[in-house]
């Protein structure tokens, strides 16, 4: 069966060129980068060259790049260890209501450990309000963590301005750029970023590799203790093939970024237009354009539930996602969709398509052929429909009705 992968926000296939770059480090130059002998020095050179590549891509210095095991680890180091290293200065952090769980849960952990967190709301498009940021950040604030681009609805946050507020108020600014690295131009200097998280498998690099940018002079301490690798911030034998692959993938992504973004945006528009032909459907997040990741299309469909759509699509060979954790494994409706003001019941009907390098116009046509029938089929067996009163089930429920788009 034809298989169409439209879940690039979850993970991407490894680029063949990236695997080629990694290949020599599996069993030829396989040494431990800390070893003194030639196997070690050739591994070390590869690691440091990769560090330079990464630094250049985001306009940082090589010494400011720390390799990690992925986005979750980078987020955890940034948030936990800025907090613990600076707790004497204040125990207040600021974050948003639409962060990825890797940030959200880490901030919640800090709340339980005696820190105070302010959770910034967002507007209908998922954008943080700069006025609210300005009010939230006080002299006691040690860290502000707001993501660069949202993984569910693709909103690109005004991080330049958020960073500026942080600089003025003396708080460190961390941004989770897991969804944006390789897709949006990043310049840590111009963007006033102190810490930035990234994960290679989101830009056609290997799983199990990520990096954290930490601006020189930032007070931070390690999450893991050991041999003192990565200038003491991240101990553990370096994953040389992973690091080399990350750098190679980033280099390719940067080179192809603008062209690929333009291509994906056209396809995203086509998909959106076709999908909105289905009645009682809408787009979650900002309109396709500069405020939105070019590959993200998050749709809502009334009266049907996301996971069922995802599985039915999968049976037609199409990989999509609900765009949220809710229906896949945990059960809460998406906190992101809730935060943009979507009624509870509508959160369950969301469907995220995230396009990628392999996506073609033909793929989109195929999806647009399959999707209406799936929605129709599920609606037929759903007890919900326009005008059905579901208030009998729970007091606080919103009425089910079509949502403007």
């Amino acid at each position, binding site marked *: 069966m034809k298989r169409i992968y439209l879940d690039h926000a979850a993970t991407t296939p490894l680029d063949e060129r990236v695997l080629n770059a990694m290949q020599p480090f599996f069993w030829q130059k396989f040494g431990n980068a800390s070893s003194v002998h030639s196997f070690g020095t050739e591994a070390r050179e590869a690691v440091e060259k990769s560090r330079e590549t990464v630094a250049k891509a985001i306009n940082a210095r090589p010494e400011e790049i720390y390799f990690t095991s992925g986005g979750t680890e980078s987020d955890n180091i940034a948030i936990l260890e800025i907090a613990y290293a600076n707790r004497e200065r204040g125990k207040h952090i600021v974050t948003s209501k639409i962060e990825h769980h890797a940030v959200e849960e880490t901030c919640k952990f800090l709340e339980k450990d005696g820190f105070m967190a302010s959770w910034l709301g967002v507007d209908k498009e998922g954008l943080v309000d700069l006025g609210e940021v300005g009010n939230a950040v006080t002299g006691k604030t040690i860290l502000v963590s707001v993501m660069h681009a949202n993984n569910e609805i693709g909103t690109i946050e005004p991080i330049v301005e958020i960073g500026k507020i942080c600089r003025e108020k003396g708080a460190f600014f961390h941004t989770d750029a897991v969804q944006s690295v390789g897709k949006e131009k990043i310049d840590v200097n111009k963007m006033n970023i102190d810490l930035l998280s990234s994960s290679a498998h989101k830009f056609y690099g290997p799983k199990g590799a990520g990096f954290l940018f930490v601006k020189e002079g930032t007070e931070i301490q390690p999450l893991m203790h050991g041999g003192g690798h990565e200038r003491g911030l991240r101990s553990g034998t370096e994953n040389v093939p992973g690091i080399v692959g990350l750098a190679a993938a980033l280099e390719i992504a940067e080179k192809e970024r603008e062209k690929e973004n333009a291509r994906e945006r056209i396809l995203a528009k086509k998909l959106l237009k076709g999908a909105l032909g289905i009645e009682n459907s809408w787009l979650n997040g900002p309109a396709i354009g500069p405020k939105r990741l070019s590959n993200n299309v998050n749709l809502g469909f009334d009266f049907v539930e996301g*996971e069922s759509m995802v*599985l039915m699509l999968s049976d037609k060979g199409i990989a999509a996602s609900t765009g949220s954790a809710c229906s896949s*494994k945990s059960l809460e409706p998406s906190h992101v969709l809730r935060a943009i003001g979507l009624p509870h019941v509508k959160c369950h009907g969301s469907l995220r398509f995230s396009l990628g390098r392999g996506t073609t116009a033909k793929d989109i046509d195929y999806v647009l052929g399959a999707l209406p029938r799936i929605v129709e089929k599920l609606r037929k067996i759903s*007890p919900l429909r326009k005008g059905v009163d579901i208030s009998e089930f729970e007091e606080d*429920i919103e009425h089910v009705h079509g949502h403007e788009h």
Partner: protein
Amino acid sequence: MYSEKVLKEFRHPKNLGKIHNPDGLGKVGNPVCGDLLWIYIKVGKNKKGQEIIKDIKVKTFGCVAALATSSKLTTMAKGMTLDEALKINKEKIAKELDGLPPQKMHCSVLSMDGLRRAIEDYRNKKAGRIEPSKKQPSRSSCRHRNKKGNGKSN
């Protein structure tokens, strides 16, 4: 995450839809948490004169597990006496499906509840009582569902 049997039931569901003028109707679940089930039954008699579920249909808004369990429940219940049907419990449904992920067990509770409500509705009507106790909270309200599973988001 789902067993082969869950997926098969989801892909080839039975008894989906509604019955016009049902003898009993059970509405359970909560669209807020993402699952809603309406079970319709027609009651008949077997040769011994016992009341049985002659026909059963279900309308479901919900996840894969919700759809699979409601379908499975209806095939299990069809033809059973009402008293037998009342004995169907969540473990039995899950067992028929080769198990459910822990965080999805509430789905089988939900469909079991739905059937009980439908039977209750039928018996209430028969006894001349006007309305089933609508507002009584379903056992499968959101409150039971907050246990965090092997979550993800990406």
